[in-house]
């Protein structure tokens, strides 16, 4: 079907141009109008700098807020499609709730009707092409500027200019057409006309993927007397159904939440259209009543169409909002949340690729997903069970009791649960860096990629350890078992400390706490090395076993360092001034060493005294 779409569309246009050359101007008008919308979207993306995204995050506190946000943002952007696509992206990235997203889409349906008001009220009454020319000329100067802000303004101004120019050509085209042929003779009265023109409006909007463009076409054709008012009403109802196609296409690459939103959009627009068709006569009377009260003349059908468009969309919202909870429950039943597949990216999908803030958030969550998979694999690789390690208050004791090897193909698990996620993270972060994004944003994206890389390195290190962990810890073999248990305990301790940091409230935790773990790791590495020397000297361990262990302890401490570095970058303050403070206070390796080594002699005495006191207290 898809492969025939393009040749059929181009063929139909060529045939139409050949049969009626006047169609060319109307078609060019539509093309210029659509191009203007694309340019306007680009402009707002450049200009926004995340403003729209920031507002969207805050706009979903209540259903009313969401609807108002949908109305205002669509009125400003003049594109319900853009607002729908951004909403789907945010929903997919888990930044807004489904009910909030549905509210925005409902509001966008009302907001998009302001386009009809602009065209009917302004576009047809003044020579807007006269404004379009200087706007386009000025915009192109701005588009070539280096400043992102000026470039954004240039695109938005140019977009608006092309919108005006497109409307002008559609108007001119229909007027020229009127002299050649009278389309109004194809008018269909009654119910047949209502249904036929509703379908026509739907198809036209699906083809153009813009209800806005369809509405402009309807209004200009109506004002040129090429279609009847009744048929224009039916066409505008059809445009409302057709516009859902953009959200459906946007949801194809989105997760289940995005798909739920697209279905909500379709249900809402179809229900609204059905109500409008059934109650077309009373709705017409309401439009007449409103028009008479706001001073619209009897013969101004273009403005009356705008009144109708707004009225039936507001009516749709009023009718559906009381059943919003039921609608959400239906969507959740209909599109079931898939069982989480740990081996597949959960947050990175096509829908979040387009908007920087959604991408950063999705990437953060995917890195956490990778970390969770990595920790499970690391602990299983050491024959430890995550829940036992997190729940115990004696990690060393739990490690000593964990002797049974866990059935695990670590290479296969690495490919399946680590590499797939890491590949997605590298792919998305690299593409984000390629786009023209602010340096601070790219830095944050690359930092997340580096965190993922550190996590992967930690897993690789544990992969090396796995064989000897099974060999020496499945049953007690004296000193060598003690040594490997020591490594298992230290890795488990680091993972538990990172887990505690994760559980702490973001306002209460500090990545600086991990410096304490770094100090432990460095101290542990030194004392392990000393202990091996001593064991070799006393012939308590053979040289080959010692060599194997030294290699393995190298891998183990590298894994610990990688995990700490990854956690430190991940949990560092996200507010940039606070992050600067933490960066200043982080201790370098030699500083850590110096702090740990200071007053070592006195420490031993203090420890002994403290333990004696604790024993006395316990006995007492």
């Amino acid at each position: 079907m898809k492969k025939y779409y393009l040749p059929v569309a181009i063929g139909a246009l060529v045939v139409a141009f050949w049969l009626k050359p006047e169609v060319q101007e109307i078609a060019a008008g539509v093309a210029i109008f659509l191009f203007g919308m694309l340019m306007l979207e680009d402009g707002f993306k450049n200009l926004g700098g995340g403003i729209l995204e920031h507002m969207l995050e805050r706009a979903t506190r209540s259903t009313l807020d969401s609807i108002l946000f949908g109305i205002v943002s669509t009125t400003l952007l003049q594109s319900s499609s853009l607002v729908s696509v951004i909403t789907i992206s945010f929903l997919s990235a888990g930044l807004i709730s489904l009910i909030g997203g549905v509210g925005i889409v409902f509001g966008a349906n009302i907001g998009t009707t302001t386009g009809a008001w602009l065209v009917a009220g302004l576009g047809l009454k003044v020579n807007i092409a006269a404004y379009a020319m200087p706007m386009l000329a000025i915009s192109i100067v701005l588009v070539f500027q280096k400043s992102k802000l000026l470039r954004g303004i240039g695109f938005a101004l140019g977009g608006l200019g092309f919108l005006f120019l497109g409307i002008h050509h559609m108007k001119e085209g229909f007027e020229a057409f009127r002299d050649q042929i009278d389309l109004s003779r194809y008018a269909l009265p009654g119910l047949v006309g209502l249904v036929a023109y509703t379908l026509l409006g739907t198809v036209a909007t699906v083809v153009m993927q813009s209800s806005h463009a369809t509405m402009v076409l309807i209004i200009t054709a109506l004002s040129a007397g090429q279609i009847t008012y009744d048929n224009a009403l039916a066409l505008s109802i059809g445009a409302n159904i057709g516009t859902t196609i953009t959200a459906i296409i946007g949801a194809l690459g989105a997760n289940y939440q995005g798909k739920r939103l697209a279905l909500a959009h379709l249900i809402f627009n179809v229900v609204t259209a059905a109500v409008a068709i059934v109650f077309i006569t009373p709705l017409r009377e309401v439009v007449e009543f409103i028009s008479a009260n706001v001073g619209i003349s009897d013969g101004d059908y273009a403005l009356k169409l705008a009144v109708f468009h707004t009225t039936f969309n507001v009516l749709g919202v009023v009718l559906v909002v009381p059943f919003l909870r039921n609608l959400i429950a239906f969507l959740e039943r209909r599109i079931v949340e898939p069982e989480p597949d740990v081996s597949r990216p959960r947050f990175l999908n096509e829908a979040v690729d387009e908007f920087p803030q959604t991408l950063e958030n999705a990437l953060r969550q995917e890195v956490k997903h990778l970390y969770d998979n990595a920790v499970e694999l690391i602990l299983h690789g050491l024959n430890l069970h995550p829940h036992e390690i997190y729940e115990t208050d004696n990690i060393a004791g739990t490690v000593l009791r964990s002797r049974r090897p866990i059935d695990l193909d670590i290479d296969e698990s690495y490919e399946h649960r680590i590499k797939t996620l890491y590949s997605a993270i590298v792919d998305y972060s690299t593409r984000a860096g390629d786009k023209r994004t602010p340096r601070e944003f790219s830095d944050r994206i690359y930092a997340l990629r580096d965190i993922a890389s550190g996590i992967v390195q930690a897993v690789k290190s544990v992969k090396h350890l796995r064989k000897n962990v099974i060999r020496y810890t499945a049953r007690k073999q004296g000193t060598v078992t003690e040594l490997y248990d020591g490594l298992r305990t230290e890795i488990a301790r680091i993972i538990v400390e990172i887990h505690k940091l994760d559980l702490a409230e973001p306002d209460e935790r500090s990545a600086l706490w991990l410096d304490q773990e770094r100090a432990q790791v460095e101290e542990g590495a030194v004392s392990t090395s000393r202990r091996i020397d001593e064991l070799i000297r006393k012939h308590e361990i053979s040289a080959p076993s010692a060599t194997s262990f030294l290699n393995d302890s190298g891998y183990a401490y590298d894994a610990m360092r990688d995990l700490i570095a990854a956690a430190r970058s991940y949990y560092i303050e996200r507010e940039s001034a606070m992050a600067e403070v933490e960066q200043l206070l982080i201790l370098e390796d030699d500083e850590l060493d110096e702090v740990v080594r200071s007053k070592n002699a006195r420490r031993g005495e203090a420890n002994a005294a403290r333990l004696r006191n604790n024993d006395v207290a316990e006995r007492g």
Partner: protein
Amino acid sequence: MGLKRLSKKISCYKERFEQGRADEIKPDHVIKVLSKLKAKKAALAEEIAAARTDDKLQRLERKLKIANEHITRAEWLLREFTDKPVREEAK
């Protein structure tokens, strides 16, 4: 050595700030970090009081040393940013 390294880091930060590549650190930011560090120190002190083995005590005391070092540096940093606000110095 510690504070010398820290003042070097501060100079680098100030350079970046003047170039518009870093956000302004205000005393409030340092106070917030300091309060988190003090909370951690208090938690460690409680753990030390409850420690029953020499090994655990040694590990906790090592952690406490790092916590104390961070607090000392944060307090010094607070004085630095209170006495010489970054924005005024940049003028």
